[in-house]
């Protein structure tokens, strides 16, 4: 599959990038690791007229500990994240999420910013032009039908990034820049919930970094990914959990975030499930009820939606237990 023609530039500073992005109508794409953008271009799903390579922008790289938070530049590679002791020791969910992505060669080029901002996916969307010619264009590809859900009127594409659920569980915020402006926003707020355009980011904005508050004592986290093979595959379902233990080893607070359940990670309110209880099994019925509202799992991944729905409490259970284990590990260090 050949890439379409495009103009290409390699700016050296963030300022240059933001100037180029000013007035972007959607025809300019940032190139980080390329593991999402390049396949989409080969499939004819993305046709930018200008590609801006971020590889030379030094300001966008690095893992820095400052005060009570860690700042990760958006162009920091997954390989660097995976080998970082700061990340491994303080943010087990992020460490596990990084190791769950694809395979080691991908980690060498993939970036945290790119992983967060990856497009949503569907069996009927992420296919070559030739494959897609067999059927009418789907909603996400600019057509008028959903191929996954007959008569479906909205897009059921799945946000399949591994890092975002873990980062949300870790209360991450994003640093977002545009020309002469910058803002900090909670990570969950950049997801629109709309499979056609999964992000609320403006076309002239660039994610420049991720900020994680250092966890206090008695806090643990974990990320669990369900997939058919043990490498390469995108998640069929994933869960990130963060647990805070209070006095008497009771669960004081817990956050549960599901990935690959629809166009956005779903944050589950867990107070009813855990508050005050000691290390306990997840209340499956309560969880199922809560989740029926927020998730939209249809038959557009490798395994049916019905199976993936049944696995929600199982994956949640593993994530909570992983988070609890990580507290013990941290305390024994």
């Amino acid at each position, binding site marked *: 599959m050949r890439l379409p023609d495009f103009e290409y530039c390699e700016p050296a500073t963030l300022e240059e990038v933001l100037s180029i992005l000013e007035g972007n109508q959607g025809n300019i794409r940032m190139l980080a690791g*390329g*593991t999402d953008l390049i396949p989409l271009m080969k499939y004819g799903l993305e046709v930018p007229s200008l590609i801006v390579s971020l590889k030379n922008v030094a300001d966008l790289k690095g893992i820095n500990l400052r005060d009570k938070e860690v700042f990760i530049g958006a162009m920091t590679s997954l390989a660097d994240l995976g080998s970082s002791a700061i990340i491994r020791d303080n943010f087990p969910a992020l460490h596990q999420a990084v190791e769950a992505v694809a*395979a080691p*060669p991908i980690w*060498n080029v993939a970036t945290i910013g790119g992983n967060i901002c990856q497009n949503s996916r569907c069996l009927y969307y992420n296919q070559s032009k030739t494959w897609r010619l067999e059927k009418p264009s789907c909603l996400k590809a600019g057509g008028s039908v959903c191929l996954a859900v007959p008569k479906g009127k909205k897009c059921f594409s799945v946000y399949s990034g591994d890092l975002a659920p873990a980062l949300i569980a870790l209360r991450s915020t994003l640093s977002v820049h545009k020309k002469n402006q910058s803002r900090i926003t909670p990570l969950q707020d950049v997801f629109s919930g709309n499979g056609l355009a999964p992000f609320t980011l403006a076309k002239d904005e660039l994610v420049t970094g991720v900020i994680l508050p250092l966890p206090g004592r008695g806090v643990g986290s974990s990320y669990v990914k369900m997939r058919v093979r*043990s490498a390469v595959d995108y998640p069929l379902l994933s869960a990130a959990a963060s647990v805070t233990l209070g006095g008497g080893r009771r669960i004081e607070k817990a956050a549960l975030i599901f990935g690959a359940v629809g166009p956005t990670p779903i944050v589950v309110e867990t107070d009813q499930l855990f508050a005050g209880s000691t290390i306990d099994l997840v209340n499956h019925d309560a969880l199922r009820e809560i989740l029926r509202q927020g998730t939209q799992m249809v038959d557009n991944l490798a395994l049916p939606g019905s199976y993936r729905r049944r696995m929600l409490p199982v994956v949640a259970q593993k994530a909570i237990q992983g988070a609890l284990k990580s507290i013990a590990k941290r305390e024994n260090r």
Partner: protein
Amino acid sequence: MKKLPKQLISLQVNGYEYEVAVRPNRTLLEVLREDLRLTGTKEGCDDGSCGTCTVLLEGVPLRACLCLAVEAQGKEVTTIEGLAEGDQLHPIQRAFVDHGAIQCGYCSPGMILTAKALLDRNPAPTDLDIKLAISGNFCRCTGYNKIVQAIKMAGPNAAGGM
């Protein structure tokens, strides 16, 4: 539609410098195979999942099908052709042959280069280390066991060499 002009880029491949005129939309895989005629690197899935296009960029495994050729400028690229010295196979290639780790051979260039990157870093990997390192390289023929064995056996001989 008028095509955009080509640009002259310099690629360092297997110790040689090649100057090629390419448009930005050429991948490193295409340029290696079509412009430099180094066809040892294979095209499989063309979307980054299978690993048959694996080359080493500064000693680290890279999916050449996802890398724009212009992005590889100024960095040392190693393809499978860069391993043997004349008729003398690289120890990892020798181990693959000796241990029955090659059937159709299509995954082998990518697999061997991934193995080289591992052994250069860790000459005595455990089975688990090996399986993790090659988890991004698919093989449809061998069932992987012989490949893992070959990499393990090659370890002590292959460390740090070219």
